[in-house]
């Protein structure tokens, strides 16, 4: 066969392969990753029935839409730590349940990977992950409520980020009522879901470090009403922690933060700082 005919044949084959891959809904890389997970399971010291169960759970998780990398990491780390196959399956099942309900899975996957890496007890990892999944489901309801009142996402991914941020607030026992009040403050200022996420995030950060949740939320609401955007909220959080490092007194840090930012606002002579509210980086893990 002539040289140029070979080239055309190869080009045609490559095109057909690319279309076939797109149509089949999986890439060779993804198929290889599923094989890698299966290879890890096959090489493990599990009993045959455990291997079969875990392999089936891993394949189900990947086919359900969980990121293959996360499934691979969870199975691999779990097996290396000698965790029972049933517990690893439980980790994956949490992710699958969330995926099937249309909830974001990244935070739960991150938490499981973190727990496995840090050597946390397997049962504790499972409980933390399942509790977080419940919080995410509840957070989704809150976000839906805000969206129904007109709060919008400016970009793809903001809704998922908002759900995860609210779920983390619920982990710190910040009430749904407090979150909704924050949402109302942002909505009144015509802020979007990204600004709302930041507001909840800063509230959670303050609450985690000793500020009573109600006071933390009050401070953030006041900041939002003054027109603080995402950069200002981030600075407010940093100021608080800097003050905490110097003073170690929560209340002093909190009021110092408030006064410092008020002075800064007056100095800059801006009312509202409405220039670029809601702009900012992505999700928290």
């Amino acid at each position, binding site marked *: 066969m002539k*040289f*140029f005919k070979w*080239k055309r044949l190869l080009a045609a084959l490559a095109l057909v392969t*690319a*279309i076939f*891959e*797109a*149509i089949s*809904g999986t*890439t060779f890389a993804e198929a290889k990753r599923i094989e890698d997970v299966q290879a890890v399971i096959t090489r493990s010291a599990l009993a045959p029935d455990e291997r079969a169960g875990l392999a089936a759970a891993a394949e189900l998780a990947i086919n*359900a*839409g969980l*990121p293959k*990398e*996360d499934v691979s*990491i969870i199975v691999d780390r779990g097996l290396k730590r000698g965790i029972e196959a049933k517990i690893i399956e439980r980790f994956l099942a949490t992710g699958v349940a969330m*995926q099937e309900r*249309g909830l*974001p899975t990244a935070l739960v996957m*991150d*938490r499981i*990977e*973190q*727990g*496995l*890496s*840090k050597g*946390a007890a397997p049962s*504790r*990892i499972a409980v*933390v992950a399942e509790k*977080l999944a419940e919080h995410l489901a509840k957070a989704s309801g809150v976000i839906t409520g805000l969206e129904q009142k007109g709060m919008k996402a400016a*970009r*793809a*991914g*903001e*809704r*998922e980020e908002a759900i995860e941020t609210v779920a*983390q607030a619920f*982990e*710190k026992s910040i009430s749904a009522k407090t979150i909704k009040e924050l949402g109302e403050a942002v909505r009144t200022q015509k802020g979007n879901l990204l600004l709302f996420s930041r507001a909840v*995030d800063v509230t*959670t*950060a303050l609450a*985690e*470090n000793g500020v009573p949740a109600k006071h933390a939320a009050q401070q953030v609401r006041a900041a939002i009403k003054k027109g603080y955007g995402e*950069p200002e909220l*981030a600075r407010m*959080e*940093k100021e*608080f*922690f800097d003050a905490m490092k110097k003073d170690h007194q929560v209340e002093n840090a909190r009021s110092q933060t408030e006064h410092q930012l008020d002075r800064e606002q007056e100095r800059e002579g801006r009312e509202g700082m409405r220039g670029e509210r809601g*702009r*900012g*980086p*992505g*999700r*928290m*893990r």
Partner: protein
Amino acid sequence: MITESDRELIHKVLDGDAATEEKERFSERLAAEQSFKKEFEALARAVRIIAAGERPAAPPLFTAGVMKKLPRRQASLSESLQTFLFKGNGIRWGISAAATAVVLALVALALIGRLRTGPGQIPAVSSFSPQVRVVTVEMRLYAPEAHRVAVAGSFNKWDADDYAMTKQDNGTWTINLPLKPGVYTYMFIVDNSAWVTDPNAGSYRDDGFGYKNAVKRVMT
């Protein structure tokens, strides 16, 4: 008697290639030698017959057929490449071929777009923001007694073996990480065993396992 040089002389005369002295010699021989004259007349008659005859046209593929049978010269790699890149290859399109190609291209584009997001997944912000730039972030931990320090966090799936840090002369361990704008949690791992919170972080989060993660906000 006819010699070889006689025949050569006759051919030259018939071809019109004879020099003057050759023509003279031809005339002498023609007059002197009967066999020479007979030979000349026979050849002249043959030339007349050929010149007067029909010249049939070669069949259409005669030349191509002959060329095909000739041994082909192997093109060098540079010649082949040049031909492939710069010479037109002349693809012939019919309406149906063009329509099929367009339909296949549209199907491929649509399915590749679906493939990027995956079934049931929401695309990440970065996949829609080609202008999102990567920021280099320095992580530091003062640990002069440590033999190895690494950093793990939400940016690398909490892989404790991934990002080993470098020890500086003053006992501080450092690493520069390229991170997209976002919010990340992380911890340091000292000597492959101790998970250590960054004392200089901007803020912190409980991880639910008894540790405090540092929080790093990477702004645009």
